[in-house]
């Protein structure tokens, strides 16, 4: 069982100490289709829970990426900017988007666990 948490906007969060790693879920990557462009938040930027924190584009359309928790961006994943197909091939590991210095740990408790998310994704199918 992973210790990842999931949001209704189809992002995952993995927490290590004060730092959270965030990406989009496998389900989201599948729904988006082949990703060909990604825009990430700059280091030092403060992002608010459920606020826009990036953009992904497939051949079909552009979609906003939101952050499931608030914090300051400490790193973003340049390797997915150079090769966006990594988001499709390995969305929940190599295809991570950015890392945050967590502002408010209690926000994490509002997110879903893996089982809850899988059920949510299956039901919403969006």
């Amino acid at each position, binding site marked *: 069982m992973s210790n990842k948490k999931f949001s209704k906007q189809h992002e995952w969060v993995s927490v290590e100490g004060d730092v959270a790693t965030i990406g989009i879920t496998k389900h989201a990557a599948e729904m988006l*289709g*082949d990703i*060909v462009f990604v*825009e990430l938040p700059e280091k030092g930027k403060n992002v608010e829970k459920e606020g826009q924190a990036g953009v992904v584009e497939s*051949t079909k*359309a552009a979609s906003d990426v939101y952050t499931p928790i608030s914090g300051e961006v400490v790193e973003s994943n340049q390797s997915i900017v150079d090769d966006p197909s990594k988001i499709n091939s390995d969305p929940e590991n190599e295809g991570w988007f950015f890392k945050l210095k967590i502002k408010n740990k209690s926000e994490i408790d509002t997110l879903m666990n893996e089982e809850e998310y899988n059920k949510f994704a299956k039901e919403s199918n969006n």
Partner: protein
Amino acid sequence: METQKTALYNYHESLGAKFMPFAGYEMPVQYPYGIIEEHKITRSNAGLFDVSHMGQLLIEGNEDLAIELEKIIPTDLKTIKLNQSKYSFLTNEDGGIYDDLIVTKVKKGFSIILNAACKNNDFKIIKTALGNKFMITLHKNLSLIALQGPKSSEILEKNINGVLSLKFMNGNKFTYKDQDIYITRSGYTGEDGFEISIPNNLVEDFAKKLITQGVKPIGLGARDTLRLEAGLCLYGHDINESTTPIEANLKWAISKRRRKEGGFVGYSKIKSDMNGQLTRLRVGVKPEGKIIAREGVKIFSKDDQEIGSITSGTFGPSVNSPIAMGYVKYNFSKPNTKIILEVRGKKYGAKIYELPFYKKSYAR
């Protein structure tokens, strides 16, 4: 209006298609292997597209009909040969485009393939122009599938004897399971290929046969990336009622005689576009880097003057870079002119690119 389904809907579903509503139809946008893979299969092998949502119109008549149709379609219909196809338009009074179409001379008269979103309106326009002199049928019992890609001719020949001898933009009647089908060598992907008009009751059987022989089903997603790489227009985006064929850089589609003689709806505007200074022109746009410029993105000159906007844009899998089309002021339309695109409030460099982005290499 209720969403319609093509005769192949259930078959698409069984192949794992994802659907989206398009021009009033539930159409397959992609299959499990995805748009980029589907695109590459079409460029290297053979792909099957369901384009049954498009209108298949038959107008019955002889020389009189050609004379009447030339008044609304600016191509040579008086001299077109039997089974020959032409890319053309229905033009409006202002020289704009009601629809782009493929017209083919058939034994009974003319067969015209129309865009799905426009077909009912086109029917009215044609009916109004022709009156009751000619029988006009918008077929409901025919499907249309496109087989596209370098392997399509050898695969189709195995099933339908004689298609190999068809020349590009020519067609003929063939038989499949004792029923008439009509095949033209044409398409909208920049590849060699065929469009097959076939009765609804046979289309699934025929599609299955091609798929079991190694052809892959391709969705509308890849159809869009393929046509954009080939520099082809999508009606309602790159051309519409307010763009003239001249502004759209489609002058080649109006034959020499028609350009000179006119005699069709909207000719005065089209003539002045040809003889005077054009204000804008449809061009290819190649962004620097990976940024994708989609419909509506504004185009600026290097000195920050707004000069136009993007009408379609995506990622081109065969050229492995973003590609786009749009209209710019005529003075900025020369290939390699540096321009600026504004995407989500940020400015990105790009250049005018001579279409098409992808040129077929006919080497075998």
